């Protein structure tokens, strides 16, 4: 238990100490929020869907949580050769606890970053429709964070170099983002695209966030929660298995 806690604490400390990085990581979400938010706003409005900012804000929060949590898992790659990973792997602690500590730490950091973007969205003019449902929004943030931190750990366990990292970003993480309905509505899509969006775990996370914060949901809270929780369990088990196979 102590080992899980101390590794969780490490991730959180690292995050709170990298102020410059926190500010830098606000850049991309801000671009999506402001440039897309205000740029596509008029078209969205004309199509009769209401405010695009209201629509895209939960998507941008979901994106932030996705990127931050995947990165936390892939940071394994850095810990791997310059060493901190070895320090934890020769310690007399079962690897599963090390993996859980790291993953929960990464998920916490991602949820914190998501909260920060939530505040930024509020400043930009986003308004949650029902204050009582905001905690549900945080639950979805946390679930997205756990799913993708475990996903990042599973991938980071096998990565050997930065080329591999680019591959993962372009062929896994970006598609997960673009197919999630963070930027556009998932109804009335071409059949093939619609299938892809349904197998993307982030679709359920973004839809859950949108439901909690703006009251508009496509799949419904129960479906979203069930799907995310199941995927979280599956990916945690898979990530732990991959982590246990690391050889240095």
């Amino acid at each position: 238990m102590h080992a899980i806690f101390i590794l969780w604490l490490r991730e959180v400390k690292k995050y709170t100490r990298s102020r410059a990085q926190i500010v830098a990581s606000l850049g991309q979400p801000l671009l999506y929020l402001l440039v897309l938010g205000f740029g596509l706003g008029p078209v969205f409005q004309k199509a009769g869907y209401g405010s695009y900012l209201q629509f895209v804000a939960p998507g941008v929060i979901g994106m932030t949580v996705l990127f931050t949590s995947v990165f936390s898992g892939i940071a394994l790659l850095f810990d791997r050769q310059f060493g901190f990973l070895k320090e934890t792997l020769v310690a007399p602690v079962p690897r599963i606890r090390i993996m859980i500590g790291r993953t929960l730490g990464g998920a916490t950091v991602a949820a914190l970053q998501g909260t920060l973007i939530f505040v930024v969205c509020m400043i930009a003019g986003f308004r949650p429709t029902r204050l009582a449902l905001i905690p549900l929004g945080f639950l979805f943030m946390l679930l997205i964070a756990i799913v993708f931190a475990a996903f990042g750990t599973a991938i980071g366990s096998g990565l050997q170099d930065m080329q591999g990292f680019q591959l993962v970003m372009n062929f896994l993480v970006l598609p997960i983002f673009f197919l999630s309905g963070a930027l556009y509505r998932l109804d009335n899509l071409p059949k093939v695209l619609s299938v892809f969006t349904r197998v993307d775990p982030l679709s359920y996370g973004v839809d859950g966030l949108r439901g909690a914060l703006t009251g508009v949901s496509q799949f419904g809270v129960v479906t979203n929660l069930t799907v995310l929780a199941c995927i979280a369990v599956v990916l945690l088990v898979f990530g732990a298995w991959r982590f246990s196979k690391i050889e240095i």
Partner: protein
Amino acid sequence: MIRVQNLVKKFADFTAVNDISFQVLRGEIFAFLGPNGAGKTTTIKMLTTLLPPTSGSLELNGLDPTRQANEVRRQFGIVFQDPSLDGDLTAAENLELHGVLYHVPRKERRERAQMLLKLFELWDRKDTQVKKFSGGMKRRLEIARGFLHTPKILFLDEPTLGLDPQSRNQLWTHVKRLNETEQVTVFLTTHYMEEADRVAQRIAVIDHGKIVAIGTSQELRQRTNTESLEEAFLTLTGTTIRDETANSSDQLRQMVQMWRR
């Protein structure tokens, strides 16, 4: 303390460690010398449960690293060839984390951390982030960390790589002192022959995955009819330079060095 018998490690088509056997006695300082790629680090990885051997048997303090990994891990401390500290954490936090991972009770953890930080002259900087430390300070901290959980065996894999003579001298003085006061068995590798000569009671020379000689420095010199350990080493292992192809970890290492500027 350490017993290795007919140890073999094969990677695909390459035999890194080819049927070696040796013993290290309790409380001894044992040096493992060899050119680059001779199999030193691979042997250490197998002894420290990071790699499973292809065949042969290993024993640390009576325990088998392949079957009793967790128990074995409590027995030793290790300082790796590459730094393995967390640069974002402070010196004290790095030690605290290590202490928790090694199940050292809180009170003892604090006391030993303080004692070791003072011994390695890092007490004043205990609340500084490790990334602001010099190479020598980082190494000292890593060695202090290796001693924190009072291990029975300490593995030092090229601990003085890239350090100035002052830091190297001081580092070995501390290691020798702790070897005497805490009866820690020390297993070290280095490329500096005079260090091995100075601190190690017995020396094994490994080349191409095989042990070519083992004994005290004097015995090695007598056997090869040479004046110094360096000459004895060159006689035993030849003068050809071993060029290793850069692997992905070397590339990463270079990149991180670039980023840290």
